[in-house]
């Protein structure tokens, strides 16, 4: 109940503020603090102790009660201090397939003191805890289940702590607008890439098989590391990539119309499977779906481009 109330108040307070620019420093006015449920129980226990002390005229009882009460108020300060002045910036988030778990990295740094048991959580989800070292970037991954393809936003994250004694809950929110692309889940039942589409270029049927070294070309970001010409690099040449051709320049178009499935989502899953397969066996492949056409190529970045096109199909231009 309390959590919900807190969430709705936060929704109202932050409605126009997010997403915000990185990095965020948790300054005093960003941090909220309230007693936790245990804190309220503790207050009740203090009341019982106080009444007992008064009633039985126990001086040591008074001392115990007041010591615990004072400890509670000092603890409030410590809880607040455990969050104050933290610097937060977004880390990178990798694309995932639908059904997998996406990890939004958040980098937290403490300018003073080590911080303990700082929790991060999205609304209504399990928190993840970390100790934050002093003057050292600590990366915390917020795991989010990627349900369906498309853009997955991290959304507002609550950063909170109850250290040292759990009687107070200090928290703040941040939202960097972090997002990852969720690819359609590849569907192996799609079978091998259809051969019909190959004939369009009229250059024969590609034979999947042993990779033959073709030529060296300049390195492009996204090329697989195992294709880098390390020997050439060692000789002092520039960074080069070894091009392999499985067949004599076989080019394959993966076409929306070839993916014969019941609904668009299933088609996308088929196409995703083919993209992965083609990349795995080293074909040059292009992608044609309504609205998007990716010319044939190969390599990690090409694969990512194709999968992204599939992921964002029907979602309009990326913002």
């Amino acid at each position, binding site marked *: 109940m309390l959590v919900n109330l807190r969430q709705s108040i936060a929704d109202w307070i932050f409605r126009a503020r997010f997403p915000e620019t990185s990095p965020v420093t948790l300054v005093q006015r960003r941090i909220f603090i309230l007693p936790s449920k245990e804190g309220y129980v503790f207050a009740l*226990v203090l009341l019982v102790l106080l009444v007992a002390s008064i009633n039985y005229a126990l001086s040591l009882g008074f001392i115990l009660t007041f010591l615990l009460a004072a400890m509670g*108020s000092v603890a409030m300060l410590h809880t607040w201090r455990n969050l104050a002045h933290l610097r937060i910036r977004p880390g990178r988030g990798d694309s995932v397939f639908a059904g997998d778990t996406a990890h939004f990295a958040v980098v937290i740094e403490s300018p003073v003191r080590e911080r303990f048991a700082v929790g991060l959580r999205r609304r209504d989800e399990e928190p*993840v805890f970390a100790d934050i070292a002093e003057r050292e970037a600590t990366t915390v991954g917020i795991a989010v289940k990627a349900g369906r393809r498309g853009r997955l936003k991290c959304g507002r994250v609550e950063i909170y702590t109850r*250290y040292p004694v759990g009687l107070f809950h200090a928290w703040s929110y941040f939202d960097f607008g972090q997002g990852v692309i969720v690819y359609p889940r590849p569907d192996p039942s799609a079978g091998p890439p259809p051969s019909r589409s190959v004939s369009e270029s009229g250059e024969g049927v590609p034979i999947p098989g042993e990779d033959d070294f073709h030529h060296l070309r300049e390195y492009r970001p996204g090329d697989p590391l195992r294709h880098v010409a390390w020997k050439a690099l060692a000789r002092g040449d520039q960074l080069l990539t070894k091009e392999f051709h499985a067949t004599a320049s076989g080019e394959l178009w993966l076409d929306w119309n070839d993916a014969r499935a019941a609904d668009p989502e299933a088609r996308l899953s088929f196409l995703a499977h083919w993209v992965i397969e083609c990349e795995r066996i080293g074909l040059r492949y292009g992608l044609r779906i309504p609205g998007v056409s990716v010319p044939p190529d190969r390599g990690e970045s090409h694969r990512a481009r194709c999968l992204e096109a599939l992921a964002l199909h029907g979602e309009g231009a990326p913002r």
Partner: protein
Amino acid sequence: MSAAIPNAALDARGVMWLLGAMLFVVAPHLARMPEWVGAFFVLMVAWRGWVAWRARHFPMRWVVFLLTVAAAAGTFLQYGRLFGRDAGTTLLILMAAMKLVEMRTSREVLLAIHLGFVLVMTNFLYSQTIPMGIYMLACVWIFVATLVGYQRGVGRPATVAERLVPAGKLLAQALPLMVVLFVLFPRVTGPLWALPQDARAGLSGLSDTMTPGNISKLIQSEATAFRVEFDGDIPAYQWLYFRGPVLWAFDGRSWRMSEFSPAAALEYPKAERPVKYAMTVEPHGKHWLFALDVPGSLPPGVSARHDLQLRSVRPVDARIRYEMTSYLDYRFGEKLPAGFREFALRFNTWQNPRTIALGRQWAAENPDPRRVIGRALQYFNSQFTYTLEPPLLESDDPYDEFLFDKKRGFCEHYAGSFALLMRAAGIPSRIVTGYQGGEINPLNRELIVRQADAHAWVEVWLEGEGWVRVDPTSAVSPNRIDSGINAALGPIGVIPSLIAADRLGILSNLRFAWDALNSQWNQWVLGYNIDRQRQFLTRLGIDALDWMTLALWLAGVSFAVAGLVSLWLVARDLPRRDPPAVRAWKRYGEKLARAGLARAPHEGPLDYLARVRAARPDLGPEAVAITERYVQARYGTGLTAPEARELAQRVRDFRPA
């Protein structure tokens, strides 16, 4: 990067800490409670420990339920109730044990820790000594450390230091606020509601019987029995006899209050030297009240028995205050009814035969009872020693043993044997217990009478004079009556053998220091009640007469102290300023950046210098000088104060743009 959920499951080490803390806090109770309670508790703790350590299954719910019911039933069978000090504490211990057995989540652990705090409090119902205070502070520390442990562990259980150090810091930082609260929190008079009957079991005070040995136990207590505010001068010490229970019945060893004792009006044939005063009696849980001999008026709700003992209708469970008038010069009870006379002469002839023979012999030698009394006092004066640590009287004839063998004793020995001697000599006599003397507080001219001032004396009935007070102790130790108990004992009166062996005086000094410490503890911690609070605050210049004013002071000072502690903690978090050389270097970098020569993050000072000189030869000399100084400050011998100033000046004058 570490990412785990603390508290998701109860880690075994955290549970062990909690169990240890619980054992600690319950340990002092184990000696006080019936054996089965301790056995049950230890067994449950061991069971829980085994479950946690070996990751066993939890006991089934119905087993826990049955055990809980059995524990409650056992408590009821033991005490006949579930509330009150002993029964309540027992029940709390047993329920805490059951809570330990059944707890499965971290939330329940916190609940158990809260129970632990309450258990700390129950210990104070039994003992509030300095060692107990220190022991319980340690318990609180362990409990807080357990709390910290449950918050601290990320992906692994917290270490011992990670628990104890933050907990210790928390408690240390809480101390100032605790002191403020303790001093200023408004105290009230008396309990908020009627206390259970056994709540006062630990209270010291007189009892309705007197056996050699039981008053001297009271003498060890510094607790206040009552306070007296006199309207006018305080009478001299030897007049300060505060009358309490009057004991008539004698069984050969103990003197008891008689069952039959009709009420009487306070009428005296002679009543002079009236003294007006107000008594403030600390709760002692019994019906009797005290008054200077002899009481001349009755407060409301109080009656007087025919032997001048005041009785309150309700037991004195709360501090009460009443106005009194007494007469120091009086005569009463001139007519002694035959029944009372017979009662005041009764004793068992088969016990204490030598004492009885001595009394009879004196009576035979002296027909005048006054001569017999003088003879007895002379006897005590000649051969006896007054001591707080009298040897035990173990035989069936305790007064024979005392009078003829041991000859060392305390007021109850003297009063008891004197009364028996009188009865043997045919003089009606009875024992009066109460308090004698007291300590005058120089601040407010109040007389404070402590349990240590407990005393017993004798009243004998003489034809034509009525009941007359005779204090045999004064014959042995006149100091006791003239100036109080401490003067009578002297500095080394209590444990002479030990003190004699302690030639260097270390032991006695230690004992004095410990006594002094205890006295301060009693006065300022245990005795810090509404009066003491008022007195203390007045001395500080705070006239906090009503609790509203006090509450305002409390709020103000608490906020101030809490604010100071907060400021101190928060100030340590403020970003530290860079040393001057670094600040100068940063400004130098900023100036160059504006001129299009920003330092790259990876660039060292010398590389940067090379680049600057290449790009702007005109800046060369200045850049070299600044860079050299900076390198010297950071990586070399450091800078002297003039050198640092020179560097700052150079940077100020540096104009690249």
